[in-house]
């Protein structure tokens, strides 16, 4: 394998993992825009997506239907999560909001463990395991699924926010809560929508990654952290930033793993991430003025 082949291989696998991070980061971004809080349970939505798809598939539901059911289930969980934790609160500090989502993530993790046990589980690849050669590198068919699905989801989210009435209303809430209320937008409903949507996107990420990376009740935390980092790197609140941050993080990680050592890959990725933040304290796509939390 030549150096360029190697590089290509790392970039490809980096983009694959990175697009998962991008989806998770997108989930963080949507909830942040509606509530100004980081939802630390976002990673659990990802885990629940993978675990419930495995469970449905294990119950002899055909794979495509199992995936669909998993997304619907997690969306419902997202709605319930919002309904029982954030919705009843009136005035609450952002820090407390974060702690509540942390409590919620502990709760969801525990529920998953009690329901499905502690073992790791997997799904079959969506279309076989015969590697595909791309120039000098190889690619699993599932990687194509991951890239394609991520692309579709990102495009769908973009279209939703640009054209659908609900999407526009959610953007209005993100831009100015007070003005949105004056315009007759039901802010509470939009917050619930943002949770539902972020849960759905998270679930999709969790499902498509499961055939290559397995899933288990405790996998949500680290995926959530990566997604959070990607969202911050991109500039918190920015959709394009989330996608860019996710891809960048994935590629950095793959390079670190490939060229240095897999044990240090996260350390390298985080170090570079921090360095970038120090150079651009508002993230890649963040607005200069919006520096407060």
């Amino acid at each position: 394998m030549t150096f360029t082949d190697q590089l290509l291989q790392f970039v490809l696998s980096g983009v694959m993992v990175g697009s998962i991070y991008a989806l998770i980061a997108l989930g963080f971004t949507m909830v942040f825009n509606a509530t100004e809080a980081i939802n630390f349970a976002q990673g659990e939505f990802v885990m629940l997506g993978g675990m419930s798809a495995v469970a449905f598939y294990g119950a002899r539901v055909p794979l495509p239907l199992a995936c669909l059911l998993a997304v619907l289930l997690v969306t419902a969980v997202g709605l319930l999560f919002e309904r029982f934790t954030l919705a009843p609160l009136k005035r609450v500090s952002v820090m407390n909001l974060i702690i509540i989502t942390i409590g919620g993530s502990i709760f969801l993790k525990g529920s998953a463990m009690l329901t499905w046990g502690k073992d790791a589980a997997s799904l079959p690849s969506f279309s076989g395991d015969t590697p595909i050669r791309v120039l000098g590198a190889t690619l699993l068919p599932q990687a194509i699924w991951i890239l394609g699905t991520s692309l579709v989801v990102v495009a769908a989210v973009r279209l939703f926010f640009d054209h659908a009435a609900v999407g526009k209303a959610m953007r209005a809430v993100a831009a100015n809560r007070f003005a949105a209320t004056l315009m007759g937008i039901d802010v509470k409903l939009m917050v619930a929508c943002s949770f539902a949507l972020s849960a759905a996107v998270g679930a999709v990420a969790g499902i498509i990654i499961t055939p290559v990376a397995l899933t288990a009740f405790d996998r949500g935390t680290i995926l959530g952290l990566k997604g959070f980092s990607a969202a911050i790197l991109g500039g918190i609140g920015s959709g394009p930033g989330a996608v860019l941050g996710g891809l960048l993080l994935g590629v950095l990680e793959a390079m670190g793993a490939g060229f240095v050592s897999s044990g240090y890959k996260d350390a390298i990725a985080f170090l570079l991430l921090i360095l970038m933040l120090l150079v651009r304290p508002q993230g890649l796509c963040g607005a200069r003025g919006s520096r407060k939390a």
Partner: protein
Amino acid sequence: MSVPAPDPTRLPHRAALAVFLFLIALLPLAVPSRYYLNVMIFAGIHVLLTVGLNLVMGYAGQVSLGHAGFYGLGAYASGVLTVKYGVNPWVAMAAALGLSLLVGLAIGIPSLHLQGYYLGMATLGFGIILHILFVELLPFTGGPSGLVGIPEISLLGVKLNTDTRYYYLVWVVVGAVLLFAFHLVDSRVGRALRAIQGDETAAALMGINTWLAKVRIFVTAAAFASVAGSLYAHYVTFLSPDSFGFGFSIDLIVMVIVGGTRSIWGSVLGAVLLTILPEYLRGLKDYDILVYGAVVILVVMFVPSGIAGAIEQRLQRWRLKLATRARVAADA
């Protein structure tokens, strides 16, 4: 003219601290088994961590998601120096403290220019990097399988090898740190920190060098955490990287919030209660994690200012009522 006396709503903290430490000193005489002392030793170590974290997060208003990293740094520096190099535990503890101060500076100096979630991200990243080093620096730390054989501490020729003796060591340190914290928050430095928390721009326009103040308190918290780590290492004599990961950083934040931010007593309460709670939940087997999560949510939902915050509000109302009654009596 009537000159108001010093704030009547403020608790006489030093008196309260003396009473509290007196009770803590009596505790070993009252508990039925050394198991309780064991839990209270961990509680004390956690208090060292939460008090520091509260100074950074509650008082100065700076998010830190990597506090467990400094705890691990103290623990591993102590462990490695004593196990691999045969250094005297006290010397190792001091060296660990020095190292943590340096690392605290190295992290704090650049990061504390960042704000809000961006600072959270940076501290989270540094915490994760430290954790990875604990796992990967195999020749020193023993990697994932852990570092074993950390020696016990002796003080003036007495081996601190019983729970009772170690309990007193830990809580003497806790007492010192609490006194430090109470004095600090009620001083020019403490007011500056609270001003930064309230409005950093306005604080800068009061002539406060906000960045320097933030770096100083961040490093102070790192030092407390380092000492906590050293005490932990010599107590359990075995270190595993799992104890110092992101999850524990979050546990610490939960302790601070549940106890009540911007209250030193809150940090004591939060650390002690949330160290004891999981012990009680053990009987629930795997269900403990559900109850723990639910307790965290419910406390923050229904007591948003934390336990200490709620108690202080109650006390304040009570005092106001007394003061009003006294005034009415004086007028009559």
